[in-house]
């Protein structure tokens, strides 16, 4: 829902854009347009050596060429000192010098004078800056008008109409690539979990996350920490070698060195605990799955370890995201748990992975997978293992459950 804050923000953009546009048009665009359209071209003669003027504004130096020229207009003779109508000054001295050097004392050059006020003349008529300046207020106006229009539309249009229009525009892009999204609205994309074929059964289920990331993040953390510590240690040793030993620095580095060593030890310990635990593979005979139907499962665990216990459960979990103050909190609740496999004292060798065939049946009438912006119902096969002398682990394999009866489809 649109907020009053958005309304104020876009109104402010619109106001700033309108004021800036008016001022730029009044101060820059109209005079420049008059130079291009109404000023009369004539010839002038430079009557003093062209020079440079330094202008300091708010601690910034600008350079401006000073060129004095004489020209005749409407039967009179006038002295001009303006290079262009914007009275341009340049932060680069070189740029100003280039302009100055292009004019020589006594030489004749074209100039343009105002027929309504012949005392006003310029040497340069083609400054496009005035028109480019318009881009700034145009951007503000576009944001203001677009945002204000959208905000006002949100205030006036019903929630159903807004939802219908948003879905309509989203579906035009989505349904072209994904017919499944149209067949099963509000159900996660099946393609995300059926992209990988199995070696024995039809599909290999993807794993929800990888344990390797934990190892990787600790490894990166340990590397960065120790690199910094080593840098300071070298600095301290360098001073010591030069005879300027900073003992305070050296002593204060000790706890940081200790923390670095602890990180490396923790990393190695974790690496050792994880080494030997191979990947878990689950293959299924059909996907997506439907309530009431039976599917074959192949469970494979590789590695070199002794599993004190291995449990595999079929679980359904509800998840809801809600705001608490400025925090976004996710609440979850398991609403179905069914044992698929339970084994103890399983020895796994490198050349002999543990494999089990099981059948899986989603209960009759069970709720299908569901996904909306703040709510989700997800099914998964959850693998939990207790490993002798190593870290225990849990791995989740998401399943997509679709409604069993679908009369909206011609061939189900």
């Amino acid at each position, binding site marked *: 829902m649109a907020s009053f804050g958005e309304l104020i923000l876009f109104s402010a953009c619109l106001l700033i854009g309108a004021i800036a546009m008016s001022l730029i048009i009044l101060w820059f665009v109209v005079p420049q347009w008059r130079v291009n359209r109404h000023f009369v071209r004539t010839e002038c003669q430079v009557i003093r050596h062209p020079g440079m003027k330094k202008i300091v504004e708010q601690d910034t130096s600008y350079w401006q060429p000073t060129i004095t020229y004489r020209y005749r207009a409407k039967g009179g003779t006038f002295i001009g000192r303006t290079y262009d109508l914007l009275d341009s000054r340049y932060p680069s001295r070189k740029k100003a010098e280039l302009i100055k050097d292009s004019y020589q004392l006594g030489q004749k050059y074209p100039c343009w004078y105002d027929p309504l006020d012949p005392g006003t003349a310029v040497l340069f008529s083609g400054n496009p800056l005035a028109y480019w300046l318009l881009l700034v207020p145009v951007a503000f106006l576009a944001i203001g008008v677009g945002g204000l229009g959208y905000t006002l539309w949100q205030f006036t249009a*019903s929630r*159903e*109409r807004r*939802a*219908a229009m948003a*879905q309509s525009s989203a579906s035009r892009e989505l349904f072209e690539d994904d017919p499944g999204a149209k067949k*099963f*609205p*509000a*159900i996660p994309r099946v393609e995300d979990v059926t992209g990988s074929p199995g070696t024995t059964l039809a599909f290999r289920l993807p*794993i*929800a*996350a*990888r*344990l390797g*990331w*934990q190892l990787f993040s600790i490894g990166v953390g340990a590397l960065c920490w120790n690199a910094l510590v080593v840098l300071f240690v070298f600095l301290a040793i360098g001073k010591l070698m030069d005879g300027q030993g900073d003992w305070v620095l050296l002593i204060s580095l000790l706890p940081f060195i200790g923390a670095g060593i602890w990180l490396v030890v923790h990393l190695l310990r974790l690496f050792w605990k994880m080494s030997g635990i191979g990947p878990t593979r689950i293959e299924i005979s059909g996907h997506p799955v439907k309530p009431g139907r039976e599917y074959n499962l192949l469970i494979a665990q590789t590695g070199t370890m002794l599993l004190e216990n291995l449990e595999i459960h079929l679980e*359904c979990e*509800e*998840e*809801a*995201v*809600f*705001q608490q103050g400025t925090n*976004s909190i*996710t*609440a979850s*609740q*398991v*609403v*179905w*748990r069914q044992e698929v496999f339970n084994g103890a004292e399983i020895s796994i060798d490198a050349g002999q992975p543990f494999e089990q065939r099981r059948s899986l049946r989603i209960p009759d*009438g*069970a*709720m*299908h997978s*569901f*996904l*909306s*912006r*703040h*709510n*989700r*119902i997800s099914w*998964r096969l*959850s693998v*939990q293992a207790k490993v002798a002398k190593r*870290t*225990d*682990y*849990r*791995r*989740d394999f998401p399943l997509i459950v*679709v*409604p069993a*009866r*679908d*009369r*909206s*489809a011609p061939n189900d």
Partner: protein
Amino acid sequence: MTDSSIRIRLIGDSDCYEPGDTLAGEFFVEIDEPEAIRVVEISALWYTEGKGEEDLAVHFFERVANDNGEFVDMRQSQPFTTKLPASPLSYDGVIVKIHWCVRIRVFLTRGREFSGERSFQLGRVPAGVAVAQEPSPDVEDEAGDHAPQQ
């Protein structure tokens, strides 16, 4: 104008439908000044209820405007019909609930509006029951937090 209301009637033996069924019904607006009705919006939609923020999606939407020169007397029965989708099914979960309804929203002149709705059920999914979480001490959880995303 006093006591304006909307009457919605669904055609069928019950308020429970299966995916792919045709949802048909009619509505009429009880109002003293039918000319005051500017626009009527008819929606068949689902919305979530529960612990999370409410999500809503419209399956069927029709907007009948009275300001395009063709006056529709909303006091007379106005039919609507739509084929219901395969999902999401109605669900009464523990922290996530999904409800289906037909909602009629009437916009009057001078910015006033009122609405009425009629709930119905899509599918026959049993209610969810909380399962106690099993304690799993010292388990390295490889499944990261994944907040719902569409």
